[in-house]
């Protein structure tokens, strides 16, 4: 097994899927010759040529729209939004068209498109390069939103997204790209969309989170273990639709639940997770369901101190986790 960075796992998945199925193609800004601004499609243009790795104009609505149209005609497009922040012009295409297509056409049509986008802050990207936008799409039945936290999950889930017969939004934390390394099998494997994953077994508190925050929570859990606090960590992996069974099981395991997201607190994914727990786990709860999230301010600030204030980090996780453990 090879140790890969998160972004290498993404590139590997793309390459393998393009080899496996010639209907798979990539379109996006700078994805071709340049290999993507984060180098996610590095080398693919050279291997598969300009017909399968398309450099597009700076028009997200067109990238999404062309992708959806190609998908309806049997292709397996992978559309890249250069930054998740820029997906907003494509929202109409994604929500009104892709998400509802199968339902609207009474199963005659479907759109097996994967839309990849790097999200998240902590990279001094400020307003236009730091946002978490998953909650915008997280009440649109017909869509799936996948946000893997490890290189292993990234490869397996991206393959699953590409092979899925309906639209999947695939959000990759841009800070994870080169920060996170992990063992990734070289053989072909697919992880199920819609299934959460226990990243650490524990008995004192349960942390439910996703994306880069899983990494922060794991770091904090390691520290807290030295104090005798045992943390159970559930990685949602798919944030829409949620894996209710796994959430309920994880919450019941300890009765003390901390939910973490980098997104702004109000209206975020974890609010829905809290609702699922509240509905199903009342008599197992030993503490109020706690949330750790970004503040409800309009954007990730640029000033490093302010960005630090906004971002979830291991220290904030550790504090919130200890606080809950001691409750």
């Amino acid at each position, binding site marked *: 097994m090879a140790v890969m960075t998160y972004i290498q796992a993404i590139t590997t998945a793309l390459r393998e899927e393009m080899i496996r199925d010639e209907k798979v193609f990539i379109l996006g800004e700078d994805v071709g010759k340049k290999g993507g601004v984060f180098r996610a499609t590095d080398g693919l243009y050279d291997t598969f040529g300009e017909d399968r790795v398309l450099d597009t104009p700076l028009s997200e609505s067109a990238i999404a729209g062309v992708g959806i149209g190609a998908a309806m005609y049997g292709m397996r497009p992978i559309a890249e939004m250069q930054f998740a922040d820029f997906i907003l012009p494509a929202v109409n295409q994604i929500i009104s068209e892709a998400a509802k297509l199968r339902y609207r056409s009474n199963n005659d049509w479907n759109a097996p498109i994967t839309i990849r986008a790097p999200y998240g802050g902590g990279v001094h990207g400020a307003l236009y390069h730091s946002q978490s936008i998953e909650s915008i799409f997280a009440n649109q039945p017909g869509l799936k939103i996948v946000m893997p936290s490890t290189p292993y999950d990234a490869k397996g889930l991206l393959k699953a997204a590409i092979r899925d017969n309906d639209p999947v939004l695939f959000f990759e934390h841009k800070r994870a790209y080169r920060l996170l390394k992990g063992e990734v099998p070289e053989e072909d494997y697919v992880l199920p969309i819609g299934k959460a994953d226990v990243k650490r077994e524990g*008995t*004192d508190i349960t942390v439910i989170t996703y994306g880069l925050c899983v990494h922060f929570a794991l770091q904090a859990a390691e520290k807290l273990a030295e*104090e005798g606090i045992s943390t159970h960590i559930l990685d949602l992996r798919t944030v829409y639709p949620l894996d209710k069974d796994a959430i309920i099981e994880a919450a019941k395991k*300890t*009765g*003390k639940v901390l939910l973490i997201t980098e997104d702004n607190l109000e209206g975020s994914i974890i609010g829905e997770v809290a609702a699922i727990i509240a509905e199903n786990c*009342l*008599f*197992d*709860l*030993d*503490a109020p369901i706690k949330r750790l999230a970004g503040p409800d301010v309009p954007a990730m600030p640029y000033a490093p101190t302010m960005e630090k204030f906004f971002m979830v980090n291991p220290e904030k996780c550790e*504090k919130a986790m200890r606080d809950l453990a*001691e*409750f």
Partner: protein
Amino acid sequence: MAIEQITMPQLGESVTEGTISTWLVDVGDKVNKYDPLAEVLTDKVNAEVPSSYTGIIKELIVNEGETVAVGEVICKIETVQASTKDASPEEVKNGELEEVTTNDLSMKKRYSPAVLRLAQDHNIDLTNVDGTGRAGRITRKDIESIMKQGVRATSSASPDTSTTTKEIIPQQNTEKKASPVVHTGDIEIPVTGIRKVIANNMVKSKQEIPHAWMTVEVDVTDLVTCRNQVKEEFKQKEGFSITYFAFFVKAVATALKEYPAINSTWAGDKIIQRKDINLSIAVATDNELFVPVIKLADEKSIKGIAKEINELATKARAHKLSGQDIQGGTFTVNNTGSFGSVHSMGIINHPQAAILQVESIVKRPVIINNMFAARDMVNLCLSLDHRILDGLVCGRFLARVKEILENMNKDTINIY
């Protein structure tokens, strides 16, 4: 720990004094900072006095209805050092936090849904569980570890029996005390037989009887001299020792004859004064306590009493006391002096009205006629049932016992 004072606050610009209308806390109560302590009435406003500290109420200095000037101390609070300064999150590191949690039990009775459910499912009495959570909160893990250990903090009383008879109450309480978690190496001794009877009687007596106490000091120099003179001869002649205790029992029996009120029993709506003077004496073995009875003690000589004490004690230690031997006591004399005790507060032998503890005879300097003298002194400590007896009659009774004992000398004592 520090003692902090709460003063009468200035409740309005021109207000100079305030009246405590109601105390909202009692001594021993745990209060948090800003919790209301008392309602205060001034000529301008009625207001609550908040606590400036987190801690335990040590003393309420001003009574309800009392008016004091602004700035006067109205109560004292014992605070935990760590909580006197405003602990900011950064300051609350491990050590300090632990200190706060061990003293603050404000969350002890806030039960989470999980804790309530588990407690009900497994019949665990939460009042007996020590919480490890913040501010004494019982966590789900606490309950789970109890379930795992199998140490059940259950109360044996089913809901319907707890309301029926008074007799249940002492049993419940003794069992509650036995509920702490047992650690490895600890020895568990089941409470059975005599120990259980003792426990129940003591709890019953202590809970039911409003005890009051009184102590007199008696000069028994002459008695000691006299007894030392006859000791050897008596032993040779009679075959057993003549103890001081026999003289005390005799003196008590004589005084009881004159103060029959002391020799009585509480019977709810009436008080029964006993004709017979049957004195219970406490005899302890290693693990047990027996209270055999010297019947009609007032009719017996000192020798007769001494003989009976000897016999009863021997029987008790051999576990040969019969039901007859321990029944019918009307008053108890307890020889606490035999362990060297000089002062004690006995628990009344239910349903008697009083118990007298005869303490150790100690040689002490005493002033007689403005001169120091070495005298043999002894304390007699009386516990009385204040429903039946008052200080006056008990005082007189004790004075009489004292008088009898102090007048015991070789001229007056008739041992045989």
